[in-house]
């Protein structure tokens, strides 16, 4: 059975799904990822699905489960690169992937994770001075 590789980049685990996954492969990924989060102590997971031409309810549910498991292991998950046709289909299917954070591409996903960590660290001074060092939108 094929396996989806998990790459560690700094404090982030990057999963790029490049194959049409059998259901077992998706479940295996779910397990592998939980193991890797614990082993590496990473606090962020990016799942790149830009190569997937469909996401059905099984894959959708797997993604949601991965996000939930990661959360328990103190890691944030961002799903990136969903194709427009896939998104339109998911809406029609009635799958809204609750609890999953998404970004358009890996770069924006990494920014999102960085912001997330920064906000978590600042929890004590929630009302502190507004810091615009890392805007979500790059200034022209």
């Amino acid at each position, binding site marked *: 059975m094929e396996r989806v590789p998990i790459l560690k980049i700094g404090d982030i685990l990057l999963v790029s799904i490049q194959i049409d996954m059998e259901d077992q492969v998706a479940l295996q990924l779910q397990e592998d990822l939980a193991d890797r989060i614990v082993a590496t102590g990473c606090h962020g997971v990016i799942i790149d699905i830009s190569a997937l031409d469909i996401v059905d309810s099984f894959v959708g549910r797997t993604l949601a489960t991965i996000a939930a498991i990661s959360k328990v292991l103190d890691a944030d998950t*961002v*799903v*990136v690169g*969903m*194709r*427009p*046709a896939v*998104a*339109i289909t*998911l*809406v*029609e299917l009635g799958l*809204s*992937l609750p609890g999953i*954070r*998404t*970004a*358009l*591409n890996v*770069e*924006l*996903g990494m920014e999102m994770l960085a*912001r997330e960590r*920064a*906000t978590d660290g*600042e929890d004590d001074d929630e009302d502190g001075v*507004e*810091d*615009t*060092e*890392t*805007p*979500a*939108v*790059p*200034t*022209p």
Partner: protein
Amino acid sequence: MTLNADEAARFAALLEENQDALVSAWTDRVTTSLRGRLSHAELQRQTSELRRGFQQALAGTAQGISDAAAAELRAQLSELSASRARQGFSATETAVSVFAFKEAVLATLDSSGRNDATTLRDYVAFSSFVDDAALFTFDSYVRVREELIADQAEQLLELSTPVVKLWEGVVAVPLVGTLDSARAQVVMERLLQTLVDTGSPYAIIDITGVPAVDTQVAQHILKTVVAARLMGADCIISGIRPQIAQTIVALGIEFGDIATKASLADALRYVLAQTGKKGR
């Protein structure tokens, strides 16, 4: 009734001899009928060219407007109707420009005191020649208008779905005109693709130019917003006019937590404020 060779020749001579008087009388009539929407000088140029066209056609013994000798004249008439059609003149106004020639010729015949039976017969034959010319003008006017309409329909389709980059990371779709299901689908797919291509996490859907929103169109917009969210982008809907807001509520369409703003400017301001907040 067609012109015979003699009649044609006699009229060719008449048009040549009295050219100044004819052109001036013709121009005056056309100027009046178009109520000053084209300058006298320009009309004078047109009528004098048309007179030459008629004269040459008749001198070449054209018996009807479809004769080979009248080819030049036909080209002139097509050009006239095309320019009139583009300038927005009505079909009647265009045809009258040609019909007026008959009156000018009649006035010339009167003033030269030729009112015998031969002249009358000549005139009737000539008159029918001009009628044909006017009908030809009418036809080509209609053809040009049809081409214009076809062109515009095509342009409208091209124009109908622009997705513009408004700011770094912000794209906008100004929707204009009636949205049917098929078009809404095309617009929405293009919008989502643009989000991916430009890596823009914000999209503003501006519906200022949409005259009416029915349940189906609203559904399409809502689905697009949800799809964009799944992809990791936020949509803001702007330009909701009062009547449309009433329709939306009356139809019981739920916009839920989707941000709606009165104007495109408000929407952009909102997005910039959002990105400022996220940046902390």
